[in-house]
């Protein structure tokens, strides 16, 4: 017995499925390169072990780690390349929502088109770096 699944749901599932699988492979490869020393470290592991029990703002201060999106300029280091790949995982949701918007338009599903559009705006706002919590 099979049930009919809406087209936008299948589109969302297909992109998310590929995106997640590709992400796993790339993240695994980058992490291995990071911990084996193939990629250079911005913060040495001994220093991380010394500081990983302290509050994050102390960690940031003592390692001179940039916050916001300033760390993007340091992606040549394994620490931040791995962080960038984690960020890509977060962007998958935005990509999937953007992909189903044309499907919803084609189906003339106005309410869900608006919901998807507003969701993309909310997530982009969160990703913009304009919303940063102080400690």
């Amino acid at each position, binding site marked *: 017995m099979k049930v009919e*699944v*809406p087209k936008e749901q299948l589109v969302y599932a297909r992109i998310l499925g590929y995106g997640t699988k590709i992400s796993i492979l790339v993240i695994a490869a980058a992490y291995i390169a990071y911990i084996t020393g193939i990629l250079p470290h911005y913060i040495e592991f001994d220093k991380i072990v010394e500081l990983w029990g302290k*509050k994050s703002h102390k960690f940031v201060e003592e390692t001179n780690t940039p916050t916001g999106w300033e760390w993007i300029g340091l992606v040549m280091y394994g620490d931040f390349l791995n962080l960038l790949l984690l960020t890509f995982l977060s962007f998958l949701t935005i990509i999937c929502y953007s992909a189903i918007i044309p499907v919803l338009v084609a189906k003339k599903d106005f309410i*869900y088109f608006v919901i998807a559009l507003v969701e993309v705006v909310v997530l982009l706002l969160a990703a913009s770096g304009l919303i940063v919590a102080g400690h």
Partner: protein
Amino acid sequence: MDLTALWWFWILLLFIFTFLLGILAVMAGVGGGVLFTPIVGSFFPFHLDFVRGAGLFIALTASLAASPGLLRRGLASLRLAMPMALIASTSSIAGALVGLVIPTNIVQVLLGLAIIFIFFVMLRAKRAEFPLVEKPDKLSQVLKISGLYYEESSNELVEWKVHRTWQAMVLFVLVGFMAGMFGLGAGWANVPVFNLVMGTPLKIAAGSSMFVISVADTAAAFVYLTSGSVLALITIPSVLGIMLGSFIGVRLLAKVNPRVVRLIVLAVLLFAGVRSLLKGLGIWV
């Protein structure tokens, strides 16, 4: 040699733990963060800031890994989840901002109380697997929230519809805020809201909960990320472990009996709730 002084010892242990957690999380319909944060925060040497940051990514990646399979099989519904995800993601941003400044012990106590409360609500529920919805409400009819899914354990098609939609929307404001504030996934709250308030079958509730987590935690994760509370060295092995575990868990989900799923959800809720409460009170630190 003192293994606990070595970085790779903790990273390997973290990977094994999250792999097992990934299998359980999918079957229980939770993101995994609700278990990850109290356990890793207690038994690993990392500060709770980094554990909460990793916990959010744990919940996010578990839900991302599980969602494609659930959506394809009709065990998650976009029509049900999208409006709730919008509400939850918006409030999770506000929750994340508050969560990063509020004293941790207060957050832990509130979290423990909330989860234990939900445990008792689900324990007393009489129609949790296939709730009875006599008449769908007007809002759900406007949004066309209803569906059909194949129940493998009984080999039949199950038709579902929902009620109390606006009440659920109000609850998702709170759920999203708490998810962001605690730095956790919110399957422990999403599932009861979908299942007990709106009246969706338990499997649809668990599947759609995964989708809501993937969206709400995306928003909160960005806030943690840009605030310096995500440490790649501990977050990545956690993410990889939970993803690999989730791929196995999602295959088991369609084959297990809804009653078994319910028992797993209850066990997960009770353990995580008691653990959070005792930690917040300083009894089991």
